[in-house]
């Protein structure tokens, strides 16, 4: 299969996720709850980010047996995470047959200089970003989908908003910039000129862009959609809440009806407690996941 066909299939699958919610699940039972609640895909991992944060230590790719168990439990696409730069974890996930690989800052990075050469894989990748430059670097490496990083495992949406706005601001600048400034702009944000040109023409990223990292309520999900995101990842926000099944469904509905406050009010009623969370501002450098990635 040639590169172009591969890209069409991989960015195409990402397009099928749009307007949907991708949920972190740690076992087949949670995966079934997510599917029943209308998730468009699940992320199979051993610990949700809030627990990775609490436990400390090194966070790695999940046990392939556990991932297979989830693949057998549901009919929707299954994603799994590998560490930044750990191309052998990615090879293993590809061999397991997952539908998408997340090269994720939530796990402990394996390489502090380079990300995976994702063009070399048949399986599509999603990668995190904090701004336009980081998004385009990942796309240049072959990412078929982007997610803004936010700050995973906090239940605090502030960083997700910051990163979504930063991407938007970058796109706006590229769009309205005189042609002669493009080369300097590409250098300033550390992105390939060709991709900057593409963003300028499209007025958006050339691949699907989801929000992630701190989304805990239907209102958070709707906010990210209104900021122009194509869909949302919810990690700890569902299964660390009082009533995961109800909250999961409410967040799915909120993404679809994000521009209808009446409906959002109805679906936000009586959901029980949200995850308690931790203010992202209170985290010092080492405890921030979003700073991982280059």
């Amino acid at each position, binding site marked *: *299969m040639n590169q172009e*066909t591969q890209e*069409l*299939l*991989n960015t*195409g*699958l990402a*397009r*099928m*996720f*749009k*307007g*949907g919610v991708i949920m972190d699940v740690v076992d087949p039972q949670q995966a079934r709850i997510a*599917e*029943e*609640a*209308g*998730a*468009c*895909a699940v992320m199979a991992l051993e610990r949700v980010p809030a627990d990775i944060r609490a436990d400390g230590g090194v966070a790695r790719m999940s046990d392939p047996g556990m991932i297979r168990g989830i*693949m057998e439990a549901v*009919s*929707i*696409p299954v994603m799994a995470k590998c560490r930044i730069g750990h191309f052998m974890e990615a090879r293993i996930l*590809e061999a397991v*047959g*997952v*539908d*998408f690989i997340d090269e994720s800052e939530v796990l402990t990075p394996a390489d502090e200089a380079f990300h995976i050469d994702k063009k070399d894989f*048949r*399986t*599509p990748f999603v990668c995190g970003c904090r701004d336009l430059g980081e998004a385009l670097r990942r796309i240049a490496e072959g990412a078929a989908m982007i997610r803004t990083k936010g700050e995973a495992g906090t239940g605090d949406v502030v960083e997700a908003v910051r990163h979504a706005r930063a991407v938007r601001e970058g796109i706006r600048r590229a769009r309205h910039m005189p042609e002669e400034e493009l080369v300097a702009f590409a250098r300033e944000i550390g992105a390939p000129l060709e991709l900057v040109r593409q963003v300028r023409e499209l007025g958006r990223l050339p691949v699907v862009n989801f929000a992630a990292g701190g989304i805990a309520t239907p209102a958070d999900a709707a906010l990210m959609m209104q900021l122009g995101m194509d869909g949302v990842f919810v990690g700890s926000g569902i299964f660390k809440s009082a009533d995961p099944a109800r909250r999961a*469904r409410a967040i*799915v*509905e909120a*993404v*679809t*009806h994000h521009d*209808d406050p009446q409906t959002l009010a109805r679906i936000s009623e009586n959901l029980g407690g949200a995850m308690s969370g931790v203010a992202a501002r209170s985290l010092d450098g080492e405890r921030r996941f979003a700073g991982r990635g280059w």
Partner: protein
Amino acid sequence: MRIGILALQGAFAEHREMLATLGVRAELVRTPGGLDGLDGLILPGGESTSMRRLAAWGGLDKALRDFGAGRPVWGVCAGLILMARYVEGEEPFAGLMDMAVARNAYGRQGESFVADLLPGRLGGGPLPGVFIRAPRVVEAGPGVEVLARHGGWPVALVQGHLLATAFHPELTPDPRMHAFFLKLCAARGALP
């Protein structure tokens, strides 16, 4: 002519862009009221489990069945599953088209593929078929016309005012399937 696209989840914007190139401004449908006065409706690709739940919660399931009973509907991939009368291992959703479907029968993303299809009565050169975790039509009823096949399996089907494709024309620059659907809508299903 007023064409709607079910916009609960999935690749609805891509259909809207394709229709715009054909001079049609499509409407996004999220509620039963959104179906009022439409001449045709596209059920896009996405996750069928996600779409059918959102439809049921919003009271769109019955509305879609009623709409499809008389007016043109085109289901793409997940949308094809929503249209099928029989779905292996689960309850059918709208049950509009007389066919039996197996979800994800081609396999996971690793088995997704692109293939040139014979265009049949659409005319012209090969039709690019993008199959992503595609459903397989394992049986089509006697009233169903097969427009295109791949590997012997039907991948584009027409039954009166209903159209279904297992592949994604909206991910290619080829507008022939969309143009065909618009003709179906204009003729209210009475194609020559």
